[in-house]
């Protein structure tokens, strides 16, 4: 049998690609890239909706101008403020360059219980020229108006005392309003540099 070859006009009725794993494969779609440059805040305030099952934010080599800063994250739930109520956990593994201080533990100073303030995701940052923080944070179904919005994150960064920090942060925004924005900032001062990328995860719904 001869091969029947499609032309563009033959595909005008196609509205969606097949959902076969090879075509979708839990893949990432880049939505926005923000580059910090002595920025007081980095804000994603669009493209966060029901288009994707979940969203990831990739933080690449964010750098602060002085030691002991905290990189923080806020969630917007309908107003203009990034103050969604959250309950969260925070634990970390750490180890210093002088081979001391190897430990794993829960950090009650960094978690939140029904709090509206910005959430700490990397604390006591080092500001040496080559020090930075990196990580991936995923928020599940932020547009739901039925359920709370869960999120998970992992950060790898330089502590001001020259130690590696491997941080696991997770929680939920305890709101049924849609989450439609995220904002990152230092607890004081600016984000000197760094790249923040917003991705949609998986096939479009």
């Amino acid at each position, binding site marked *: 049998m001869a091969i029947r070859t499609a032309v563009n006009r033959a595909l005008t009725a196609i*509205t969606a690609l*097949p959902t*076969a794993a090879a075509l979708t494969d839990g893949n990432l*779609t*880049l939505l926005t890239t923000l580059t910090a440059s002595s920025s007081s805040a980095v804000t994603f305030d669009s493209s966060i909706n029901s288009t994707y099952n979940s969203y990831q934010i990739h933080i690449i080599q964010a750098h602060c101008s002085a030691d002991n800063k905290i990189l923080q994250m806020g969630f917007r739930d309908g107003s203009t403020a990034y103050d969604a109520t959250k309950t969260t956990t925070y634990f970390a593994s750490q180890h210093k360059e002088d*081979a001391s201080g190897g430990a794993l533990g829960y950090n009650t100073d960094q978690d939140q219980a029904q709090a509206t303030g910005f959430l700490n995701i990397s604390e006591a940052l080092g500001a040496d020229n080559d020090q930075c923080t990196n990580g991936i944070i995923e928020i599940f179904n932020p547009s739901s108006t039925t359920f709370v919005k869960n999120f998970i994150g992992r950060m790898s960064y330089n502590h001001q005392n020259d130690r590696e920090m491997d941080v696991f942060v997770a929680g939920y925004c305890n709101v049924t309003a849609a989450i439609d924005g995220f904002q990152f900032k230092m607890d004081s001062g600016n984000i000197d540099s760094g790249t923040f990328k917003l991705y949609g995860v998986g096939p479009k719904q």
Partner: protein
Amino acid sequence: MALVKYNDRSLRNLTTAPAAVTGNSPGALVHIKTLTASSSATLTFLHGSSDVVFNSTYPIYKLVYTSMHPSQQSIFSFQTTTDGTNYNTSVTSTSFGAYQNEGGSDTDLGYEAGQDQANGTAFQGLMSFGSNIADNDAAFSGELTIFNPSSTTFVKHWMSDLNFYGGSNYSQRSQHAGYFNTTSAITGIQFKMINSGNIDSGTIKLYGIKDS
């Protein structure tokens, strides 16, 4: 000849899309290279060699290891190179893990001081509290993420998460993270069993996460 028109149902059995449509990958996660172990002493991804891309093309690289089986009980490990030859970049790292035996009688979660490094140059073990056994059905799988390895300004952070089949029938989840303490660009990454023996089988896939 009449025009044959297709609809969504016409495409439901497709498993691949033309590269012209997808740009070789339908999303931002771009497959670069798959290495398949076959009694392999090392598995190496080196930029510019064997179609490997490991430079500033992507800001984040992800490596996924699937059903890796060692020839003898040993610890999976990795190192990086800045000169293309020597895999001995200084690394400071953390290590912790959780485990449970098949009998359900022994569980724990804790830090593993035996497998962290403090500006060490040895291969970095990726299995806390044990090593993968070589029973025929024993294997490990997981993933490794490296941030901007080509940076010449910052140290290079990484994070690893894997599960392995530990000695005396344990399921062991192992978490490692760290940074290669260099401002030279990292151009390659190599995996091996740290004690002895080969990687009998399994695959390691290298992906880049698109920058734009």
